[in-house]
């Protein structure tokens, strides 16, 4: 396929879409599927076939639409009218909607999201631009939305150096959590004097409560492929690996389809978009280890070894897959790349803050009126996310803390609600941006319990290669468990802090180094809660059992 053919295809898709009077979009992301989107979709299909409408509306099963707690979501797009979005859609509602459309009558009034729903209107969607609006299994729809234009432009009008420079100028930083400047990483790989290089997209998202990458992979797989191909061109790699978490079969299936479609049409393969650039992408599934999200463990897993990290340096940009220079970015980082190229580096850098440009996708969950997937410019105050987008806590409950960064992150207390959500500001508060999990907690949450939960997670997920992480997280979990059960020993508090520092300083990889963060950050903001557990043997939030019995450790 050439650039011209791409444009023709996009135009045809656009014309087809304009020709149709209406589109019916059913969110088929994992949360909506779990809530019964499949039955809504088949009810729509059946009723549409029976209705005998002259111009049958387009029926599209899309990826994640956003407000997951309201699912299944059914969106009705009509020409010259604002979209009608139905929440908690049922097969009965589907029938009623089709009947209304075929009669030309008004749509059912109940079960509709407000027209200016702040959850949707307060967002800036760059990465999620197509999410919930296109069929992830139809490459034509991605192309119709302007997809693969950036790749065509890069291949025909830009040198690899120019691409690296553009990514650097955009100020894009890694979306996997650490926030390393993406352009710099690309240039490091590019500079290595080796013939063979690799590109890897890290889709091994594992933080509890975080599902940004899953939604992205399920909803807009071609955007990730496009970002990877651009990266391959920029760093001089001909092979890319997409590492998907084993728990995401739907994402893997859609990505596999997308890769096959792109190869069939010559968007990937030996002559990418009829240029001399060759690029293939291989899909790799994880086997259920959180640590494989760590880049060196991911490398081991891709190569077929036990998923365990190794010491850095050497960094993967120098010695990665089979000893060759390897670029590893998060899938969300790659999904930003087409936007960087098509918007232009300056326009991209203008979004967000000076040091953290662009947007960030967050998986908003916990005690909120509206939970789901959101995308906001970096630097957006937490208060705006919690109260404007999330709609505040249900039943007027008080906000207590927000947990970011999963088991590597920390809690942000109510006093810091106005913190801008960017890399540096969160780090200053003892938390991290992380991959984008954002869990909001109210007064009923106990911070010792939260710390205990995350420590248990790290203990379960430690690979066991180094002693501090293997045995240290185990002992930390037991100390926290004793506190939560009212059987803590007097010296436990000091030992807890000392061991936290030791595990942070001496562990081999990021998992161990960051495992104490949830404890240290809750100790920083909620030390009195720990004291109450320890001295008064009481849980202020009434959450901990305090029954004087230790929970048996998992064997």
């Amino acid at each position, binding site marked *: 396929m050439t650039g011209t053919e791409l444009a023709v295809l996009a135009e045809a898709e656009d014309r087809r879409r304009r020709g149709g009077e209406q589109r019916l979009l059913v969110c088929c992301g994992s949360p909506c599927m779990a809530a019964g989107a499949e039955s809504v979709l088949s009810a729509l299909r059946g009723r549409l076939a029976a209705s005998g409408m002259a111009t049958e509306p387009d029926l599209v099963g899309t990826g994640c639409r956003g407000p997951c707690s309201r699912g299944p979501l059914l969106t009705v797009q009509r020409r010259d009218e604002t979209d009608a979005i139905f929440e908690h859609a049922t097969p009965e509602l589907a029938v009623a909607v089709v009947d209304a459309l075929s009669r030309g009558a008004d749509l059912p009034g109940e079960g509709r999201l407000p027209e200016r729903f702040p959850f949707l209107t307060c967002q800036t969607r760059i990465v999620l631009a197509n999410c919930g609006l296109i069929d992830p299994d139809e490459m034509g729809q991605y192309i119709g939305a302007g997809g693969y234009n950036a790749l065509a432009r890069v291949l025909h009008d830009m040198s690899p150096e120019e691409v690296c420079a553009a990514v650097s100028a955009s100020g894009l930083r890694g979306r996997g959590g650490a926030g390393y400047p993406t352009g710099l990483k690309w240039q490091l790989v590019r500079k290595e004097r080796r013939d063979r290089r690799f590109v890897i997209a890290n889709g091994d998202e594992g933080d509890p409560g975080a599902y940004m990458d899953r939604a992205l992979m399920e909803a807009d797989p071609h955007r990730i492929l496009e970002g990877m191909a651009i990266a391959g061109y920029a760093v001089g790699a001909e092979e890319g690996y997409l590492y998907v978490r084993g728990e995401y079969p739907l994402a893997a299936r859609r990505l596999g389809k997308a890769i096959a479609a792109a190869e069939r049409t010559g968007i990937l393969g030996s002559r990418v978009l009829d240029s001399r650039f060759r690029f293939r992408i291989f899909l790799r599934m994880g086997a259920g*280890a959180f*640590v494989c999200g760590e880049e060196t463990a991911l490398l081991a897993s891709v190569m077929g070894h*036990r998923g365990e990290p*190794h*010491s850095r340096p050497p960094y993967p940009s120098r010695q990665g897959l089979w000893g060759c220079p390897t670029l590893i970015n998060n899938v969300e980082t790659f999904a930003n790349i087409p936007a960087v190229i098509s918007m232009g580096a300056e326009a991209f850098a203008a979004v967000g803050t000076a040091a953290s440009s662009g947007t960030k996708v967050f998986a908003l969950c916990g005690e909120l009126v509206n939970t789901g997937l959101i995308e906001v410019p970096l630097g957006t105050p937490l208060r705006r996310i919690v109260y404007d987008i999330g709609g505040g806590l249900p039943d007027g409950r008080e906000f207590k803390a927000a947990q970011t960064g999963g088991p590597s992150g920390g809690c942000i207390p109510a006093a810091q609600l106005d913190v801008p959500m960017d890399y540096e500001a969160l780090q200053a508060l003892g938390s991290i941006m992380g991959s984008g999990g954002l869990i909001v907690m109210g007064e009923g949450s106990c911070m010792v319990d939260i710390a205990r939960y995350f420590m248990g997670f790290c*203990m*379960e*997920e*430690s*690979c*066991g*290669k*180094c*002693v*501090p*992480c*293997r*045995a*240290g*997280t*185990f*002992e930390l979990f*037991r100390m926290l468990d004793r506190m939560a059960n009212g059987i803590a020993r007097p*010296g436990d508090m000091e*030992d807890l802090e*000392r*061991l936290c520092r*030791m595990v942070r*300083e*001496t*562990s*081999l990889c990021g998992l161990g*180094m960051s495992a104490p963060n949830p404890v240290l950050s809750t100790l920083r903001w909620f030390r009195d809660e720990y004291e109450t557990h320890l001295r008064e043997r009481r849980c202020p939030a009434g959450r901990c059992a305090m029954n004087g019995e230790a929970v048996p*450790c*998992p*064997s």
Partner: protein
Amino acid sequence: MSVVTLTMNGRLISARQGESLLQAAREHGIEIPTLCHLDGLEPLGGCRLCLVEVRGSPRPLPACLTQASEGLVVETDTAALVEYRRMIVELLLAERAHTCSVCVRNGRCELQAMAARLGVDHVRFEYRYRLLPLDASHERFTLDHNRCILCRRCVRVCDAVEGAHTWDVCFRGINGRVVSDLDRPWGESTSCTGCGKCVHLCPTGALSRTVDVGDEAARERASLLRILERRAGIREEGA
């Protein structure tokens, strides 16, 4: 081969380019403790005992995996490092059942020696007290998981030196343990050559010779008989 100069514990020392800090230190009589490293085996960086402070690095670095380079300023024995090492040994002692008095390696155990060297006279952490199985299915050797510190010397030597790769690690985290073949009893392993390299390198009593049964015991007796024979000869001469 080019030579670099670095500062270790305030002393200027020279090292070969590409040499590890651990090797460089040893060549100059500075002992950095380690339980997993052995020259000739792939460095692992697992025990974290050899961590040293390098100026400019935000956190301590493993000496076995850090290359000596020009102008490095290294401290190997700061108070913080010594405290970390003690905690590591305590964590190891609490993790499994290291009951020295009934261990075959008592007195010759590297973990025991390390504890003594670092002044570990008590363990502040709660012991795990979890009885793990013992694999005595091999005709000459025994594997006792209760004494294993997961240093993986056995895994590495079997793979790199013997070329058999009988050993590997199964499960993860606190539940990790070394297994032979695909977690079959050692005695039924089809890849094990019985060379005993793993046993010779094991720092603790996890891998040991099963000296009290089978052929081994018979050989012990034969050598003793030879000694007695000589002794009898000497006696005869003296008479």
